[in-house]
């Protein structure tokens, strides 16, 4: 397992990625898999929009629409947005804190493979009898009534990928607490690292309720449980609570890293320190905290009673305050700065008005009595696409452009980047702005068609046209990626020239060991400080020496594969005789792999000092 990779065959590269525990390679895996699922979810969105372009359309059938709708929401949230967020975290956070890797490289790989197999499992449903069709929220009465195995795929697939997410969350918590370079106090951590930290804490507390909800649903559907069957004393509202106790924090799990990404970008391209850093940290923590007290705002119409509705309404509104603090701090980061409109900065700038529109419609939803009108209408669809696309997707696109050179050593083409931006930005507002009004005019969401004569025609047509703009933008982005990969020029450490944080101090892409010498951090924006003092590199905190690295391993892949096989077996255990044995065999595979993990000592290996020096001289690690 040497460091300086020689030219390898395709097989060797694949094996390398299957067994890697390097956070930078795992980031690339997350990017590819998450990107693929984003295209899939986007394709599903396009199908939705085509179907809804005109009234009484029969592009797809009613049942199929529900499958597409459910898979669009589920895929986008669990298999696209979250993994892409994880891609950014893995690519950046360890380097930003001056670490050589994450705290648990093995678990990092395990987290990825669990997500990946969970996602593949969920999508197998398309070919094995039908996808889930009860909405991404999968409310209990409908999901128990659903006749195909779709919901079972949903339950087991999310269970597996959720486990991966939980592991990833714990990993980042420990990484950020224990692996920071000397001098990097909590209040010197870059904003994206802070966002990752709070997000990981949210994951830790939000995913268990989902796990439990999914267990109940699995029991009810596959093993004769009665949690949600009113006839035997069950209660469907329990599912709704569990889902939203998870579901609301989930939206902040998505958006806080987005905030973090934008914080980095605003500072970099305004050439200015983040305004009000400490209040930004405070606001992030507060949003995370409040995020757990508001879930019932998704259930205002369930009939929880006025007391619960009023409490949750007011609690929800409170979140506007810390979010507002962030918005104004960003504006004042730009204030007095020297802005360069690169592609990432375009997204960041566009994010502010877009997200504010989405945020304030959120506060409108929070007014419980008025939400009786908005709920389950297109007004809500408009709200959440404004925050998710205008916040999270913009951030992911911005982050991808921003850190692409750090991940791959080449800059994405700026011209094409801006074409993508304008297409996507225009399409986004065209698609979703009008949906506010559709909702207010009485159009419910999750409808596979609408009848003429209700005033919905024009709005839906505009919305569909907008979606095509977004698709065109994404296609340009894909072209950009291909062109860059083929013809792009290699770049140096700090290709944007205004980098402030530690990741811009190492070569692009970073060497396997990140830092030849662990740096000494002397303040917020550690690299900027060194640059301003006219230094080329960082101040080292340790002498040059051998570098200890973790061993690659196939076990994470095997463990995840085991669960995948097991889930497949249990899913069919009521239909086929092979179901139960396959289910058990799968579990055994996982257990045996865990056993090996436990008994094989893994002390890692060392990269000798000489090799490190040579790599550093060349300026590129891999």
């Amino acid at each position: 397992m040497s460091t300086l990779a020689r030219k390898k065959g395709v097989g060797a590269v694949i094996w390398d990625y299957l067994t890697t525990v390097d956070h930078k390679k795992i980031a690339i895996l997350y990017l590819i898999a998450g990107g693929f699922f984003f295209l899939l979810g986007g394709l599903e969105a396009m199908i939705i929009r085509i179907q809804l372009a005109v009234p009484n359309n029969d592009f797809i059938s009613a049942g199929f629409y529900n499958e597409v709708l459910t898979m669009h929401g589920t895929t986008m949230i669990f298999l696209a947005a979250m993994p892409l967020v994880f891609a950014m975290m893995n690519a950046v956070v360890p380097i930003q804190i001056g670490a050589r890797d994450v705290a648990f490289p093995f678990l990092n790989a395990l987290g990825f493979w669990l997500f990946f197999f969970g996602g593949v499992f969920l999508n197998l449903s398309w070919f094995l009898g039908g996808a889930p069709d009860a909405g991404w929220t999968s409310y209990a009465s409908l999901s128990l009534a659903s006749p195909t195995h779709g919901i079972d795929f949903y339950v087991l697939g999310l269970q597996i990928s959720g486990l991966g997410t939980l592991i990833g969350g714990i990993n980042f918590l420990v990484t950020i607490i224990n692996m920071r370079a000397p001098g990097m106090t909590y209040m010197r951590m870059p904003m994206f690292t802070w966002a990752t930290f709070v997000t990981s804490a949210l994951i830790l507390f939000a995913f268990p309720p989902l796990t439990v909800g999914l267990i109940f649903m699995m029991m009810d559907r596959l093993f004769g449980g009665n949690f949600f069957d009113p006839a035997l004393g069950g209660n469907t509202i329990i599912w709704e609570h569990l889902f939203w106790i998870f579901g609301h924090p989930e939206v902040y799990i998505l958006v806080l890293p987005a905030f973090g990404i934008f914080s980095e970008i605003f500072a970099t391209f305004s050439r200015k320190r983040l305004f009000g850093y400490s209040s930004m940290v405070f606001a992030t923590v507060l949003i995370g905290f409040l995020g757990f007290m508001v879930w019932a705002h998704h259930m205002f119409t369930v009939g929880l009673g006025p007391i619960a509705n009023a409490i949750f309404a007011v609690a929800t509104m409170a979140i506007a305050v810390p979010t507002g603090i962030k918005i104004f701090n960003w504006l004042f980061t730009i204030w007095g700065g020297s802005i360069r409109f690169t592609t990432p900065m375009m997204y960041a700038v566009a994010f502010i008005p877009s997200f504010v529109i989405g945020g304030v419609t959120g506060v409108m939803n929070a007014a419980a009595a008025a939400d009786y009108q908005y709920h389950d209408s297109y007004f809500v669809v408009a709200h959440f696409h404004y925050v998710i696309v205008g916040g999270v997707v913009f951030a992911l696109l911005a982050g991808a452009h921003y850190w692409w050179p750090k991940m791959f050593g080449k800059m994405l083409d700026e011209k094409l980047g801006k074409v993508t931006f304008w297409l996507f930005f225009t399409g986004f507002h065209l698609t979703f702005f009008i949906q506010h009004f559709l909702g207010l005019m009485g159009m419910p969401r999750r409808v596979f068609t609408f009848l003429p004569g209700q005033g919905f025609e024009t709005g839906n047509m505009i919305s569909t046209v907008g979606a095509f703009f977004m698709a065109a933008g994404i296609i340009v982005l894909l072209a950009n990626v291909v062109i860059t990969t083929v013809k792009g020029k290699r770049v140096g450490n700090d290709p944007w020239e205004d980098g402030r944080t530690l990741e811009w101090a190492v070569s692009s892409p970073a060497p396997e060991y990140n830092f030849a010498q662990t740096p000494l951090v002397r303040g917020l924006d550690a690299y900027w400080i060194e640059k301003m003092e006219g230094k080329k590199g960082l101040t080292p905190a340790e002498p040059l020496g051998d570098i200890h690295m973790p061993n690659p391993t196939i076990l994470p892949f095997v463990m995840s594969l085991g669960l995948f096989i097991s889930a497949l077996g249990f899913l069919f255990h009521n239909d086929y005789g092979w179901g139960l044995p396959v289910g058990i065999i799968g579990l055994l595979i996982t257990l045996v792999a865990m056993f090996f993990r436990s008994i094989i000592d893994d002390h890692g290996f060392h990269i000798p000092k000489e090799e490190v020096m040579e790599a550093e001289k060349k300026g590129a690690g891999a």
Partner: protein
Amino acid sequence: MHVEEKLTPETFPAEPEKATLEGKNKFLGFWFFLGGETVLFASLFATYLALKDSVAGGPSAKELFQMPIVFLATMLLLTSSLTSVYAMHHMRNFDFKKMQLWLGITVLLGAGFLALEIYEFTEYVHEGFKFSTSAFSSAFYTLVGTHGAHVAFGLLWILTLMIRNAKRGLNLYNAPKFYVASLYWHFIDVVWVFIFTVVYLMGMVG
């Protein structure tokens, strides 16, 4: 210093579980995991509480639960918590043999607990209280069964550690592993305290 280096009581650090960075990471990561587990069990408890009276014509808590078995199980598990404290005590004193001994006792007590639970469940099933009898039964078996699964996993884990390290003794590579496993074991006990209180005792009160 290499982590597997042979140590003596003099060189053995006071907090062996946190002496290496790996150890520190494990220690912290595991505590966070327990924070997540707290929420997991809370969701199970919350559901149990919401459904405990939904017996749908099946047996109710009051009719089913019997004090002696629960009491015995509680004593076994509580004691096993103490024995694992003993094990950690000896680990800190760098007395590997005694540590293994106390871990062994812990495992035995845990196995006894698990056997009692299995016996209890089969009795219930005979009395017509099956998993699919009512919402109450589903909630009961899922909550108590999840705890039981934790016990079983804990047993396997501690056993694996004991056997794997039987020959080579204590070092800074495996000390954190033992420590974390014992934390897990205590956590299982914490959960049981709430189970015997909320499920069994409150169930018997009615």
